[in-house]
C-alpha cells in the first residue's frame, strides 16, 4: 500500500525561447514522492508550473536536470498506466463520433498491426460509462453533450484505459457547481482503487478526501491537508490572497458546521 508511485529527484525545467535557448526556469530543484492510493491536490498561481509538472510526469516534456520516475520507470514507459485529462481539451464539434466511440478510444492498442475493438473492449467501455452515469448517452453524438457531460465522457475514456494513476488538469474550470460536486464525488469513489493527482485553480477541493496539497510555485512543497492554513494560502498566491482566503473561509465553515 505504501509503494512509491511517483518520484522526482532535483528536477529543473525551463521552456526553450524562440531561439531554442533555455529560458527562465519554470521548476527549480523539485523533489517529492507520491504513494499508491493517495489523492493529491496540486495548487499554485498561474504560471507557477502546475501544468508543466503534469507534462513532465507524462513524458511530454523532459527535465533539464534531475530524474522523473513513475512506477520506477521512465515516464515514457509508464504512459499506458496513466489516465490523463488535459486542461481545455479542444475537439472539432463537427467530428462524427458517438459517446461510446470516444470511450472506446481508451481501449486503443499501441503498435502497427491492424485491429478492431473486441467484445471485451466494448464491455470495458460500458463499465466506464456506467461509472460516470453516462450509459444512457452511449449512442449520442459527443458534440451534442453539455460541458459537464463531455467531461464525464472523457473521464470514462480515461477509466477505460484501466489506469493506476489519474492526472487531471483543472477538470472543473468549465463546470457549474452541481457538475463540479458530482465530479469530486466520482473522483472520491475512484480514489478507492486509484492514485489521483488533481490540478485545481481553487482550494474548494481541499476538503475531506484530499490527502495532501502540493503547492507549485517554481518550487514544490507538499502539506498534509489539515495543515493548509490561511498563512500558507497567502504565501502561495500573494496578490490574489483575499479572494483565495475568502474561498478558504467558506470551506472552513462548511467543514466545521
Amino acid at each position, binding site marked *: 500500500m505504501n509503494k512509491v508511485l511517483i518520484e522526482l529527484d532535483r528536477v529543473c525545467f525551463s521552456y526553450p525561447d524562440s531561439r531554442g535557448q533555455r529560458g527562465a526556469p519554470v521548476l527549480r530543484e523539485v523533489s517529492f514522492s507520491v504513494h499508491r492510493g493517495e489523492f493529491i491536490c496540486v495548487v499554485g498561481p498561474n504560471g507557477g508550473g502546475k501544468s508543466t509538472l503534469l507534462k513532465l510526469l507524462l513524458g511530454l516534456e523532459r527535465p533539464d536536470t534531475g530524474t522523473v520516475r513513475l512506477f520506477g520507470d521512465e515516464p515514457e514507459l509508464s504512459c499506458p498506466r496513466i489516465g490523463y485529462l488535459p486542461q481545455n481539451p479542444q475537439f472539432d464539434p463537427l467530428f462524427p463520433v458517438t459517446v461510446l466511440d470516444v470511450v472506446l478510444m481508451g481501449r486503443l492498442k499501441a503498435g502497427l498491426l491492424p485491429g*478492431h475493438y473486441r467484445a471485451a473492449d466494448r464491455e470495458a467501455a460500458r463499465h466506464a460509462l456506467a461509472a460516470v452515469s453516462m450509459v444512457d448517452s452511449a449512442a449520442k453524438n459527443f458534440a451534442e453533450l453539455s460541458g459537464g457531460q463531455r467531461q464525464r465522457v472523457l473521464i470514462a475514456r480515461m477509466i477505460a484505459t484501466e489506469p493506476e494513476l489519474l492526472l487531471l488538469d483543472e477538470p472543473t474550470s468549465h463546470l457549474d457547481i452541481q457538475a463540479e460536486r458530482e465530479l469530486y464525488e466520482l473522483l472520491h469513489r475512484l480514489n478507492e482503487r486509484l492514485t489521483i493527482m488533481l490540478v485545481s485553480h481553487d482550494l474548494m477541493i481541499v476538503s475531506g478526501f484530499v490527502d495532501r496539497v502540493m503547492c507549485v510555485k517554481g518550487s514544490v512543497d507538499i502539506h498534509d491537508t489539515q495543515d493548509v492554513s490561511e498563512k500558507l494560502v497567502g504565501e502561495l498566491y500573494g496578490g490574489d490572497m483575499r479572494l483565495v482566503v475568502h474561498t478558504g473561509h467558506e470551506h472552513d465553515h462548511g467543514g466545521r458546521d
Partner: protein
Amino acid sequence: MGVFLADLAKYEFLQHALAAGVLAGVACGIVGTWVVTRRITYLAGGIAHAVLGGVGVARYLQKVHGLEWLDPLYGALAAAMASALLIGWVSLRAREREDTLISAMWAVGMAVGLVFISRTPGYGEDLMNYLFGNILLVGKSDLWLLAGLDVAVLMVVIGYYNRLAAVSFDPEFAGLRGVNIAFFQLLLLCVVALSVVLLISVVGIVLVIALLAIPAAIAGRFTRRLWSMMALASLLGVAFTTGGLALSYAPGLPAGATTILLAAGVYLLLQLPAALRGRTSRGD
C-alpha cells in the same frame, strides 16, 4: 438516358467508363469522409494539382524519349505520394505555415506539368484530359489499376479504422496511448494521395476536390459516425459518377463536369430547406 443504356450494352468503352466511375465513387466517399472531417480539402486540392507535374514528366519521357512503359498514371502516383509525404513531413516537423506550403506546391506542380507537356507532341488535347478528366478514355489496364488502388484504400481504412479515427479526433490522447501519430497522419495523407490519383482519371485534376468534398459533406448531414458517413458517401459517390456519365452521354457534355454539377446540385437542394428555415427564423 435511353441512348446511354442502349449504347452501354453495345460499347466496351462505355462499360469501362461506368466501371471506372463506380470504382472512383467508392474511393471518393471513403477518403472524402476523412478529408472533410479532418478539414484538409485544401491539402487534397494541392496534391491533385501537384499531380500534373508527375503526369507531365511521365508523358514527356514516354513520348519523346520512348519509355513506353512509363504510363502517366505512374507519374501521377509518384507526384501525389511525394507531395503528400512532403506536406505531412513538414507539418509534423517544422512549425511552418501549412497553407503557404500547400499553395506553393499546388502552383509548382502545375508549372512543372505545363512545361513538360508543352515539350510533348499532342499538347492541347492531353492537357485538357488531365485537367478535366475523360472517363470515356479509360482502358482495361487502367481499370485494373483503379481496382487495385481501391482495394489498397479500403484495406488501410478498414484495418486501421480505430486508430485513424482516434488520431483524427484527439491526437494527444492517441499519442499517450502509444499510437504512432506520425505514422498514421502520413498514412492517411498517402491514402488521400492514392485516391486523388484514382479520381483524376474520372473528373480530372481541377474537379477532384469537389468529388472528395461533396458526397462526404452530404453524408455528414445524415450520419453521426465515421463508418456510416463513409458508407453513405460512397453510395452517393457512385450515384454521382454514374448519373453524371449517363446524363452527359447523349448530349455529348463533358462527363466530369456533369458529375460535379450533379453532385453540387443535390448538395444545394439539400441545403436549401435549412437555409430557408434559418432565414425565416431570423426574420421573425
